Structure formats: structure tokens, C-alpha cells
């Protein structure tokens, strides 16, 4: 059954290391979102893409975070260098929406990142 797949599910890393999180959106979906969830801030939108083009990444700390879609089946979120305050659950979601059609977002299981 169609679902969004995120890897890894859990990641523990040391401060200063590079972290790469991957997302495989549902086949045929043209919109991909990256969110970060913490108890304090809730679900924050970091970046999103439509048809692989970045539409908005204003929610992302530009100096250390980057998001890309090398192809339609893969989205990546990188943090370099990582810091303890980056510890959170990172979710990827995909959708089939356009500007004219309503669309729900399908979420992956998330990557739980701990930076020590």
C-alpha cells in the first residue's frame, strides 16, 4: 500500500556531525513537505517542494540546513553541522495537490534525531 517512507527512523549523532534524512514520497505525488516537531514548537514547516522545485524554505535555518529533491522519488534534508537544539522528530509528507485541487498530506513515520 502507498505510503511515505523515511529513513533512518532514529539517529543519534554528536554535535558538529552532518546528518542526512531521506524521504521517499508516494509515487505520483507532486508536493513534498519537511516538518520538524518538538514539544515546545509543535509541527513547524521547514521547506516544501512542488514538482521538485523548492517553493519556500523560509522556515529553515539557512546556515546549517538544506533540502533538495534530486529526483521525484527522493527528498533529502541535511543538517551540517548539527547542534543539540536540532534534536526533534523530522517528518516528511507528500501530497497530490495543485493550486486548483484540494489535497491532504500523507506523513511518513518520522526520523527521531538526537544530537548529543
Amino acid at each position, binding site marked *: 500500500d502507498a505510503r*511515505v517512507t523515511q529513513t533512518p527512523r532514529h539517529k543519534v549523532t554528536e554535535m558538529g556531525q552532518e546528518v542526512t534524512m531521506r524521504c521517499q514520497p508516494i509515487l505520483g505525488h507532486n508536493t513534498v513537505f519537511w516538518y520538524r516537531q518538538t514539544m515546545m514548537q*509543535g*509541527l513547524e514547516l521547514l521547506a516544501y517542494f512542488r514538482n521538485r522545485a523548492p*517553493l519556500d524554505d523560509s522556515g529553515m535555518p539557512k546556515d546549517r540546513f538544506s533540502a533538495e529533491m534530486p529526483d521525484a522519488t527522493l527528498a533529502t534534508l541535511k543538517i551540517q553541522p548539527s547542534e543539540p537544539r536540532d534534536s526533534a522528530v523530522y517528518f516528511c509528507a507528500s*501530497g497530490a495537490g*495543485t493550486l486548483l485541487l484540494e489535497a491532504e*498530506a500523507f*506523513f511518513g*513515520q518520522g526520523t527521531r534525531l538526537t544530537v548529543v
Partner: protein
Amino acid sequence: SQKIEQNSEALNIQEGKTATLTCNYTNYSPAYLQWYRQDPGRGPVFLLLIRENEKEKRKERLKVTFDTTLKQSLFHITASQPADSATYLCALLIYNQGGKLIFGQGTELSVKP
């Protein structure tokens, strides 16, 4: 500033009662408002969507209202069950920002048997 606000305190109700959750927003003009359910350790799951020109939407035991004048949505679960216990998130789809989907903090619902 732009904000989406949901009841920050957990909602505790008795099985069989109707749960009502609130979502208020400021300085947004959403095209759609969506409600999601999130269980611990899982990603949010879509429940219902309501458009800006719709007042009410129903799906089984769920009902959503949308008042663009008050800038508020109410989410109702009738005949609640312990299995409805979860965190419920509202989300706004903002078209003039390219289809941006922004979430509130969520309200935790606990239904006691």
C-alpha cells in the same frame, strides 16, 4: 503576526460524550482548513478537509465547522470512544504562498471509559 491557536490544555471527556476542539487563526486567509489525528510515535493522519466557502462538513462521527469571519474552526467527535484518544491538529492551506500547509500545536484528547 500570523498564528494558529488550539486549546493548549488536554481535553478529558467521558466515553459517549461529544468532544469539541477549537482552532483559531489570525492574519491568514486559508483556502482550506484540515484536521489531522496524531498518535504517539506516529505521523499525523488526515481526517477531514473543509473549504473556505463551506460552513460544515461531516464524516461518520466527525463534524467540522469553518467560520472565516470569526477565523475559527470547531471539530466535533460525537459518541466518543477511548480509541479516539489522540492529539488532534488543525492545519491551514495557504494558497497565496504556493500551497503552504501550516499546523497548529494540537490538542490532546483523552476519552475515559
